[in-house]
């Protein structure tokens, strides 16, 4: 906060008049910069100095630098136009290396010691840019010229023309390196959000805060006060800046107020959600350790006061884009806030009284004003001002302004020598945020500008200049009044506001948009859109505002037309002979000013892009040197390499063989587990599963098939009946969340009176599959109860204790085809249990296996998994059609019976093996009959899952094949056109081992 509280006494008196430094020839007296300290910086490699409180633009101007950039299309020399975030011209690359930030507006870049900036979009140098040849070719490069050419010969567009155009694209350059800075996000809640800390915003914040409301005051600038620190008006008998300082001080001292400088409200979203970007570290060379560069705040506000002020608009006349041509308000800002003179001989071209302030302020600082050109016939002349009734018809000077051509009302033409021209075409209230929800601004004749639509978002209230109240008094008054209304609507009592004395000049403006004549008059400075382009758009019937924008690129540059849109619209209105409102209106969309992508992402990047879920045996598996794989959010052990194993196949084959020969252990905690209780639990399951569960005896497990309402298979898994009214459902790892959501939908929305309660227990239990001929032998050393085949047969389940009394759950189920169990203990003991299983199983040949072996085992057994359950297949496709009971109503039963889904010749799950055992298949290969062409018409299906079966010593696969059930033994080609390979395969039963299932029951 210290910098916004900087003492500003003497802004008017200029008592701190410092000797003009040779290095800062344009620095004059006064301003809010701290002249006691110097700040060193470089621009295009050359060193300069400025002061704390400077922006890059003010410091460069102080140093006499006018040329700061090049325009996009014609590469015209460009200097500063504005003193704020609306700047279209002075864009630089800030910082270097991985921190390089292209297209940074010098007008808002806060100066810090060691700042590095370089100009953009030129070759070889800023002062001599070969690409400026485009300016000479401009007669050809009119709006949309590229739509009319580059068509012949056809091939040349991509090979020749476009590459040239692309090379010219863009302004600044990305570093191509990862952004090294951190970003953060957060949430703020308040009664009143005040957007902008000018006179209206400060008064609104004071009013709301004094009433006791929770207030957030945000301003994009690093120094608060808005125009108060750029003008010389007095407020309440002191300098405007002085009043602002004390207002900010009062607010900063209140517990119910949060003052946020360097914070831009970038968007207005539904129901009072505002997004704010706080630039925490951009005024340092680099963020402090552990601190973010910027923070994205989502602000939840009951009301928002829009005190964003107004933006001055240019006038279009020939060559109005030269460095040295600036907005009048900006000239005053540089003079009054930063103590910088825009030039030594300054001219003005204005259509309103506001412009005359500029002349007075300049002369007060001893800057020579050579002409005040004004097209209005009824101006109130002021003594001592070099008034010229007329218009500016052109300018001179290549890299910087050297003079202007003036045509007086009586027709006399003359050239006036000057090095700066201050232009004012009037002010546009900053209503951008009010249009973020598609409420189009409405034209107001009195001020010749757009105001917020009555349909603007509820609770977003424009005040001050943003509401067309341009005088300081008007701003203070409307800020106080609207804030009082707002807080009283929220139930607070607002004390009567004591408004400080301030000027209340009326708006005297005669709309004046452009000076007709030869030469190019710029409307959009960055994109090089001139009055001629607007005329051409009109001529070619691109007359709707949206067509105009898209055809000419008007308002599509980094400034989003803040200074150009209304002017372009006005010129189009002149051409169509319609009024401005008839011609159209300007729209605004988020963000208000461009926002770094990094801050929108916050901390979700790199390895923290999404959370990581670890299994209970993760630590143990790490110690065993397991290779891990991402399965959804989970990290699972993929295989466990042993010393000497050189390929993953070796490890996986060993794990598979050991499991089939002895016993394997695999962490299956990731499977979803849902606890289902209640007297109607069985009935509920009958409705959500295609098969029946109410008949399942207590202590038994059954495989269940769950359909979507459209009859396609949603998920599968086993469900165990642990008690009369208690079931435990398992889901696939991938579908745990959607299945739970679906079950709650059925429970709450379809059958709200069923007595059934659901809760996920996925993470409460660490569950391991223990599979293989020695599984029982191993588990009997762990489980305290009798688990003989008689006591605990195939598909049994129950509560047991392990290792001398720890409660556990045992399920005798198998995914591998072996005699297998799944044993579950409270998660905190998962690590200990797997170590115990390994220790106890030594002599039984126990082997841990990962997801790869799991996949091999299930394919050998012909079980479907993710690749088969792809959301496109039915129970019938999987060969499980009989499981869909027609005797009861269940989700998906009806629609699963539609004609196209029950075709005899439809897809069926089949097993595949290569005719040549040595052949290598690829999952995703398609089936083509022998002798037929590999074209879509002959496409019979595809391979879903492929593994190498160490058991059979060749590859085996599952796949879907048209009419597959009837084609056992048939030979086909598995074609992989991507690799230009094909393998002859034989269609077999998907059950490659133990089709009768003796092993399961063994």
């Amino acid at each position, binding site marked *: 906060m210290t910098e916004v509280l900087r003492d500003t006494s003497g802004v008017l008196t200029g008592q701190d008049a410092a000797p003009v430094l040779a290095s800062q020839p344009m620095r004059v007296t006064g301003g809010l910069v701290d002249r006691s300290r110097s700040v060193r910086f470089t621009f295009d490699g050359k060193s300069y100095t400025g002061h704390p409180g400077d922006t890059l633009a003010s410091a460069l101007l102080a140093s006499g630098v006018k040329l700061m950039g090049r325009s996009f299309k014609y590469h015209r020399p460009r200097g500063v136009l504005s003193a704020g975030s609306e700047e279209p011209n002075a864009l630089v690359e800030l910082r270097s290396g991985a921190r390089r930030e292209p297209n940074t507006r010098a007008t808002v870049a806060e100066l810090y010691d060691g700042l590095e900036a370089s100009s953009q979009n030129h070759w070889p140098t800023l002062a001599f840019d070969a690409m400026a040849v485009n300016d000479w070719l401009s007669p050809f490069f009119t709006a949309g010229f590229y739509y009319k050419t580059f068509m012949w010969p056809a091939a040349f567009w991509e090979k020749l023309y476009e590459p040239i155009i692309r090379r010219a694209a863009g302004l600044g350059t990305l570093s191509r390196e990862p952004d090294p800075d951190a970003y953060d996000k957060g949430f703020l809640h308040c009664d009143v959000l005040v957007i902008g800390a000018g006179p209206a915003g400060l008064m609104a914040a004071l009013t709301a805060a004094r009433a006791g409301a929770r207030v957030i005051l945000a301003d994009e600038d690093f120094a608060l006060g808005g125009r108060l620190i750029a003008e010389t008006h007095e407020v309440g008998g002191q300098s405007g800046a002085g009043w602002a300082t004390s207002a900010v001080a009062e607010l900063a001292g209140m517990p119910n107020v949060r003052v946020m400088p360097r914070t831009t409200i970038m968007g207005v979203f539904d129901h009072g959600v505002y997004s704010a970007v706080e630039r925490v570290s951009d005024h340092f060379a680099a963020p402090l350790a552990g601190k973010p560069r910027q923070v994205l705040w989502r602000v939840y506000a009951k009301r928002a006061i829009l005190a964003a002020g107004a933006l001055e608009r240019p006038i279009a006349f020939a060559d109005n884009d030269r460095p040295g041509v600036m907005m009048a308000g900006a000239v005053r800002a540089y003079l009054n806030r930063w103590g910088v003179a825009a030039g030594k001989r300054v001219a003005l071209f204005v259509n309103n009284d506001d412009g005359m302030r500029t002349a007075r302020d300049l002369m007060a600082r001893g800057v020579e004003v050579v002409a005040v050109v004004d097209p209005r016939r009824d101006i109130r002349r002021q003594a001592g001002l070099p008034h010229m009734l007329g218009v500016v018809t052109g300018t001179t000077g290549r890299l910087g302004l050297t003079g202007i051509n003036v045509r007086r009302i009586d027709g006399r033409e003359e050239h006036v020598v000057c090095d700066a021209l201050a232009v004012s075409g009037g002010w546009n209230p900053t209503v951008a945020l009010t249009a973020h929800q598609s409420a189009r601004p409405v034209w107001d004749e009195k001020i010749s500008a757009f105001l917020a639509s009555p349909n603007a978002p509820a609770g977003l209230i424009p005040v001050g200049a943003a509401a067309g109240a341009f005088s300081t008094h008007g701003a203070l008054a409307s800020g106080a009044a609207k804030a009082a209304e707002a807080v009283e609507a929220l139930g607070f009592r607002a004390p009567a506001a004591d408004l400080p004395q301030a000027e209340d000049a009326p708006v005297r403006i005669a709309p004046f948009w452009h000076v007709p004549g030869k030469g190019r008059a710029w409307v959009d400075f960055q994109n090089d859109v001139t009055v001629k382009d607007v005329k051409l758009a009109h001529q070619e019937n691109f007359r709707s505002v949206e067509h105009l924008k898209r055809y000419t690129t008007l308002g599509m540059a980094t400034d989003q037309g803040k200074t150009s849109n209304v002017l372009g619209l006005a010129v189009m209105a002149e051409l169509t002979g319609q009024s401005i409102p008839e011609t159209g209106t300007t729209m605004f969309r988020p963000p208000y000013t461009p926002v770094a992508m990094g801050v929108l992402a916050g*901390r979700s990047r790199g390895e*923290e892009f999404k959370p990581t879920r670890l299994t209970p045996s*993760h630590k143990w598996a790490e110690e065993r040197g397991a290779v891990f794989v991402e399965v959804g959010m989970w990290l699972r052990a993929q295989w466990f390499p042993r010393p000497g194993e050189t390929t993953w196949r070796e490890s996986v084959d060993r794990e598979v063989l050991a499991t089939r020969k002895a016993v394997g252990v695999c962490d299956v905690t990731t499977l979803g587990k849902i*606890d289902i209780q209640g007297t109607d639990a069985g009935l509920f399951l009958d409705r959500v599963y295609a098969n029946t569960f109410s008949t399942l005896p207590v202590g038994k497990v059954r495989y269940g098939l769950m359909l979507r309402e459209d009859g396609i298979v949603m998920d599968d898994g086993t469900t165990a009946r642990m008690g009369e009214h208690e079931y435990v459902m398992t889901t696939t790892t991938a579908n745990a969340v959607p299945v739970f959501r679906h079950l709650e939908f059925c429970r709450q929305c379809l059958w709200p009176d069923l007595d059934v309660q659901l809760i996920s227990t996925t993470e409460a239990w660490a569950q391991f599959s223990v599979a293989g001929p020695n599984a029982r032998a191993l588990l009997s050393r762990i489980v305290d109860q009798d688990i003989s085949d008689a006591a605990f047969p195939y598909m049994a389940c129950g509560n047991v204790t392990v290792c001398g*009394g720890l409660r556990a759950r045992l399920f005798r189920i198998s995914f591998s085809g072996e005699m297998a169990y799944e044993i579950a203990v409270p998660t905190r003991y998962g690590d200990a249990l797997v170590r115990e299983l390994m220790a106890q199983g030594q002599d039984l040949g126990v082997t841990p296996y990962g997801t790869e072996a799991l996949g091999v085992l299930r394919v050998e057994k012909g079980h479907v998994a993710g690749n088969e359950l792809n959301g496109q297949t039915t129970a019938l496709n999987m060969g499980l059609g009989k499981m869909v009971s027609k005797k009861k109503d269940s989700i998906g039963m009806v629609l699963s019976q539609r004609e196209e889904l029950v075709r005899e010749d439809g897809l069926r799950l089949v097993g595949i093996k290569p005719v040549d055992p040595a052949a290598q298949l690829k999952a995703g290969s398609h089936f083509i009959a022998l002798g037929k062409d590999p074209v879509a018409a002959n496409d019979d299906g595809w391979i879903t899952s492929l593994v190498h079966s160490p058991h059979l010593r060749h590859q085996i696969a599952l796949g879907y094949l048209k009419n597959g059930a009837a084609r056992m033994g048939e030979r086909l080609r598995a074609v992989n056109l991507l690799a230009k390979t094909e393998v002859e395969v034989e269609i077999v039963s998907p059950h490659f081992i133990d089709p009768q299932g003796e092993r399961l029951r063994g």
Partner: protein
Amino acid sequence: MAEHRLTPLAPLGHAEPIEERIGPVLIAERTDVAMASVATRRGWETELAARAAQAGLPLPPPGQAAENAPWGSFWLGPEMWMVEAPYATHEDVAAQVKPALGEAASVTEQTDAWVRFEVAGPLKPLFERLCNIDLDRFAPGSATRTLMEHLGVYVIRRAEDRMTVLGPRSSAGSLHHAITVAARSAF
């Protein structure tokens, strides 16, 4: 405590839960609380209230947490609560709660489904960077489920300067990382 030969592992993967002080806040992993969910059986609403009251189990209204030693509890959803008790005395808390409620409720063990962090210190600068709750309107005794860095968590405000955060146990590391990074950013 049941007698057996297995030794537990804390959610962050260490034998003992870990603590970390960052600036003014202390972020402590805790494993000494057992939990079970209690859901009303359809039609047993009044009966459950009575039995819970008799057993001294508080069943607070939506958005609230309550305590009545040794029990604590907070609201999960319509007709559903999470009951807490000291792990030392209530390791198998579901089995200890069920008899008291009988047919009136479905009771499910939840203890190890969650990682528990107790955060002590100035809460606002930290939690405004973590989740979307208005702390000025989240007085002690408030409990809610919300999102924290893509994770569904429960936050329970125990006191002006103490918050419990319950997150999915499998994501303990990610949640801990989120909280500590936010703390470093805030303080």
